[in-house]
């Protein structure tokens, strides 16, 4: 047992972090040029390069970084589709709603089978997160059935989504701490006030616990562990909650500025809210966890 990032894993993490810092500023919208950069960096093919049924340990590490950097685009679906069929940009169809409906293929896995839908129309909708476009698809789209278990894909999707959330939970601790060190009131940095200190400490606790949960879920997926379904569910639940709670606390630490469009915190909050709904919301995850208790 060795449950902390090893040197290969640290190198992978640092490489992705460096790529994100260089190429993906927080407000960069989804675009195909950026998508190609991510594909070239191996973001979508990690499971393939590690052999069948492996690579989730690394994928989780990478997706935590993508979450930290708030990289836009249908990351999870494109990752899931790799190896199933050939397409650059793949997104999920959930009911009749798709995020990033400008994708090439829609992946539908809510029912008994998985379908890939290549031809569809959509109507754009007002999105919750300005960097996550949303559209209503249809009506009457039909796709080709894929030979893959939807439950398996959903498990992987939940884990990857949890990793994105975990990244947000960690990054917002840093944002809050940086701001608390700089911003002064009453002739002191606000981070010297215990109320602010303790908010930051609680954020850190939430982020670290969620990160342990999702890292473990990634490893357990690769190890085909008996309790893997429960681990994924728990990680999705805790990472969703940690991301939203940390974004909210981060706004509180930023005070009035946190409530403006001028600083980035609101983008983290809105992304966290979007991710929380994907692959099953927190109540759904809790019900799943109850069934696996």
């Amino acid at each position: 047992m060795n449950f902390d990032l090893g040197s290969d894993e640290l190198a992978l993490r640092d490489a992705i972090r460096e790529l994100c810092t260089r190429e993906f500023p927080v407000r960069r919208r989804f675009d195909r040029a950026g998508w190609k950069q991510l594909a070239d960096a191996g973001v979508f093919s990690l499971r393939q390069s590690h052999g069948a049924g492996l690579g989730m340990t690394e994928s989780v590490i990478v997706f935590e970084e993508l979450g930290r950097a708030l990289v836009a685009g249908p990351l999870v679906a494109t990752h899931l589709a790799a190896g199933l069929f050939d397409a650059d940009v793949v997104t999920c169809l959930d009911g009749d709603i798709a995020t990033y409906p400008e994708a090439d293929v829609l992946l539908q896995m809510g029912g008994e089978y998985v379908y890939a839908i290549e031809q569809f129309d959509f109507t754009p909708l007002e999105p919750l997160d300005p960097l996550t476009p949303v559209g209503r698809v249809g009506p009457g789209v039909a796709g080709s059935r894929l030979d893959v278990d939807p439950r398996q894909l959903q498990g992987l999707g939940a884990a990857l989504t949890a990793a994105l959330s975990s990244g947000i939970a960690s990054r917002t601790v840093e944002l809050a701490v940086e701001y608390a060190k700089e911003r002064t009131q009453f002739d002191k940095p606000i981070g010297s006030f215990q109320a602010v200190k303790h908010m930051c400490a609680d954020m850190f606790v939430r982020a670290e616990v969620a990160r342990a949960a999702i890292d473990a879920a990634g490893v357990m997926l690769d190890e085909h562990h008996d309790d893997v379904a429960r681990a994924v569910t728990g990680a999705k639940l805790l990472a969703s909650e940690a991301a939203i709670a940390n974004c909210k606390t981060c706004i509180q630490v930023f005070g009035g500025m946190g409530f403006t469009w001028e600083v980035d915190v609101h983008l983290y909050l809105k992304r966290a809210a979007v991710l929380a709904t994907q692959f099953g919301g927190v109540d759904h995850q809790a019900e799943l966890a109850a069934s696996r208790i």
Partner: protein
Amino acid sequence: MDLRYTDQELAFRDELRGWLAHALEDVPDEPPRDDWAARREFDTSWQRRLFDAGYAGIDWPREFGGRGGTPTEQLIFLEETTRAGAPYVGVNFVGLLHAGPTLAAEASDEQRAEHLPKILRGDEVWCQGFSEPGAGSDLASLQTKAVRDGEDYVVNGSKIWTSFAQVADYCELLVRTDTPKHKGITWLICSMSLPGIEVRPLKTIQGSSEFSEVFFNDVRVPAINRVGDENDGWRVAMVTFSFERGTAFVSELLDSMQLLKRLVELCKRNGRWEDAGVRRELAHLSCDFDALWALTKRNITQAERSGIPGPGGSVFKLSYSEARHKLGDLAMRVLDEATLSGESEEHIRGWMHAMSITIAAGTSQIQRNILAERVLGLPR
């Protein structure tokens, strides 16, 4: 103790209800959120209608154009207008709830005669110039400078979180007139049409622009527009705050009760009401809001007795803003994927709004300091 309304109060309620049923028939549609000229027109027209019907400033003295009623009647007014779905106080907020009561308590006879009737008639819109980029929780460190030059103060600096600045006629402006932190502040009535004032709207996380940054560049404010003595502005501002904390959230609470009701209805429609956990959380919030309504009545009774709202305002704000966070989080959980597509927009807006009320008008942290130090007597 009693919660019963007097015959006079009941008569007032009936009369108001009757008037509202009629008056609301020809209220135009609400303008878009960011069309500020139209919003001013909409909000002040309604205020003028209230004024003409004798319903402006229910508990303001008659000499200023108010109705001369009791705070209880003001509460009835808020209850009935919210229930009836009448227009919200909108751009008249600062004038009616902050600046107006402060002027009534602290301004000269001339100042009161000049502004209070116009505020009530909807002829004058006010904004608040208190916070600065460097002076938020630590308001007393404000740096916007006013130097006396003849009959004027010459003001330089900037203010932030100034609601309705785009359409305001006047600003309740706190300026620094001397060095000592709390003892060098002055409260001015500043016309927004004076040369040298620039308004730059700030976009909020909700995407709207209620707040602005306001820049003052050699703005000459006549000294006659000072409220209270020079360097006594901190004390005057504390009076403003006591009104802000005391009653400014009453309409919000009534709105929140309606919002909760609509979330309950939504849950009954989408099946989540069958979920005992969700049902209990909704019911708990209903109990919270009921209790806050009772607390409001206590605060108003205490304000009536002592003239100025007490610490109950901080208690209210802490508890209310926490309940609103819970309501918002619950709505997001219950709506789940429906949030993605902008459905149930009012609940999403409500969720985001909650994040502003633990910050605005004194953060929750500042409110806790106030209670701990001023009410419970814990050492600074």
